[in-house]
């Protein structure tokens, strides 16, 4: 096992104006499960491929353990990767797929066999060892791809959206399997996904990236509770956090007809401020901001109310989303008052950074 360290690692593709990965500093601890998450083109997959050695590092260093691997060949890095499309060798059986790396490494036949069987047992693949990939279901193929990584007993697992080709139900199931497996094996893992739910449920820590720049790397709860900027605040959590840009008057702002007093730590130097409230942090009824409900999304346990803030002059302003109890949600076209739970207000400067 080993840690993985990015030191100002940068990857710039030819003929592009901005780097795909820009001065990335990230430390993945020994045995840790870190998820890289972000929208398409944020540099998460490129970062992963830099660890594998499939992308060159234009500047900065990458270390695995204490070893600088920046210029090492992929095969010398002792990492195993699970690809999005699994990349199973179609002409080999499951067992041959899993044992291929070991065969190349010239392990003895007995040892290869033993490791394949161990992994197959772990992944419930024993009945399928003699099948070809084309005769397997999506979930089985995914497990073979995992098995191929496991048998190598590498220092680091790299996973590039391994669940994106599975259907929703299987994805949730496999998500838990992978997380459980990683904890059991204790192998350092870097996992890439664009799905924030996957990121939050699987990772010890989650690194949010945008435009090649790391925004924040923190345990899921911290990411949810205190996002460092508006991008992270909006990206983490579903539905996304409500963000209201409001003018500051006299150390306070008003959302509709509801005044919000700014905490003392926030100096009122700025003319505008962004107030963030998650949909699940509203209580319905009592005082607070008035909402005109346009759509009620019923999910069973919960209902999400989509609508607009009712201004004091009876017009409707910014859009707002709130969670309501699914048993008895308010009706469409009605108005409700929403009161944010104390301690769940987020404040951001106009440039997006979090205010204390």
């Amino acid at each position, binding site marked *: 096992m080993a840690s993985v360290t990015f030191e100002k690692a940068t990857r710039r593709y030819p003929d592009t104006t901005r780097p795909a990965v820009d001065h990335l500093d990230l430390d993945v601890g020994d045995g840790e499960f870190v998820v890289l998450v972000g929208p398409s083109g944020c540099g998460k997959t490129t970062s992963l491929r830099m660890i594998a050695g499939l992308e060159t590092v234009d500047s900065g260093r990458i270390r695995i353990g204490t070893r600088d691997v920046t210029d090492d060949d992929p*095969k010398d890095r002792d990492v195993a990767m699970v*690809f999005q499309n699994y990349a199973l060798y179609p002409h080999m059986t499951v067992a041959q797929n899993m044992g291929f790396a070991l065969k190349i490494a010239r392990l003895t036949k007995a040892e290869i066999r033993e490791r394949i069987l161990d992994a197959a047992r772990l992944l419930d693949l024993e009945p399928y060892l003699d099948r070809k990939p084309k005769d397997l279901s999506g979930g089985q193929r995914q497990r073979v791809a995992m098995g191929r990584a496991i048998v190598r007993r590498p220092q680091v697992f790299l996973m590039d959206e391994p669940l994106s080709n599975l259907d929703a139900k299987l994805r949730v199931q496999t998500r838990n399997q992978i997380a459980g497996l990683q904890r059991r094996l204790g192998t350092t893992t870097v996992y890439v996904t664009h799905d924030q739910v996957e990121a939050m449920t699987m990772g010890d820590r989650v690194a949010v990236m945008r435009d090649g720049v790391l925004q924040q790397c923190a345990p899921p709860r911290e990411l949810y509770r205190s996002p460092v900027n508006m991008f992270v605040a909006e990206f983490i959590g579903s539905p996304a956090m409500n963000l209201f840009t409001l003018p500051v008057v006299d150390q306070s702002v008003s959302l509709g007809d509801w005044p919000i007093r700014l905490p003392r730590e926030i100096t009122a130097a700025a003319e505008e401020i962004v107030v963030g409230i998650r949909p699940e942090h509203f209580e319905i009824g009592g005082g607070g901001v008035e909402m005109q409900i346009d759509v009620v999304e019923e999910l069973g346990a919960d209902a999400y109310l989509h609508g607009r803030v009712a201004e004091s002059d009876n017009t409707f302003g910014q859009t707002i989303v709130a969670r309501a109890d699914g048993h008895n949600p308010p009706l469409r076209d009605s108005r409700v008052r929403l009161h944010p739970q104390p301690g769940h207000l987020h404040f951001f400067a106009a440039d997006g950074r979090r205010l204390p």
Partner: protein
Amino acid sequence: MGLAERVIKPSIVRGIVLYTALIVIASCALFPILWAVSGSLKDEGEVTTPTLFPAHPLWSNYREVFALMPFWRMFFNSVFYAVCVSAGQVFFCSLAGYAFARLRFRGRDTLFVLYLGTLMVPLTVTVIPQFILMRVAGLTDTPWAMIVPGLFGSAFGTYLMRQFFQTIPAELEEAAILDGCSPWQIYWRILLPHARPAVMVLAVLTWFNVWNDFLWPLLMIHRSSIATLTLGLVRMQGEYVARWPVLMAASMLILLPLILVYAIAQRAFIRGIAVTGLGG
């Protein structure tokens, strides 16, 4: 009229039209061969009469082929040249195709276009320089003359293999890199087994070309101990001008192995045509 009938009817009409058209086209293609089969069973008087079925089928024409030319010797020569050249083509074209499709090096695409450009040059332009080359190398009238020129690949074969290798997802190769493969191992253990359909197409097409080639052996080979079947057929024509039934019997015997090769490789061949995008 029930729903089922209404649904089925247009497809029946379409089927009839389609199959009629196919039968007509297939008959046009098959007729010359049928005519040759029929001719090979006629006697010399009957061969010029326009009947498809001989009055008294004469199998002795076939026996005579073996008496008049060293058939088995030439058969062996043709098979030997075809096997050697096909193997060489598959090996070198797939290597070159892999390099052009997957490896990154300076001037790769320019080089490929130039190489592909040689397809534009007709054989008649290069045949004399090639002849001189062979004579300088002292290979004329040796088996090498039949093997060496085709052994090291062709622009067409390289193009075919390159097209196929380009369709293989990059992740497959990357997985192999991470599994510790060298470029040679990636080619040999991952890409080549994966490319079997394309390999089959190339092998069969090369086999056909070598088997049917006439001009090159005519220029290169004098000794009949190393001659090919096509050469034997034509020489027989020179010596026994009027014996059409025997000539047709010989033609049939030469055609038979080709049909066999195609029948065996047919499924892989058609799949290969489909996956390499040569069809349509």
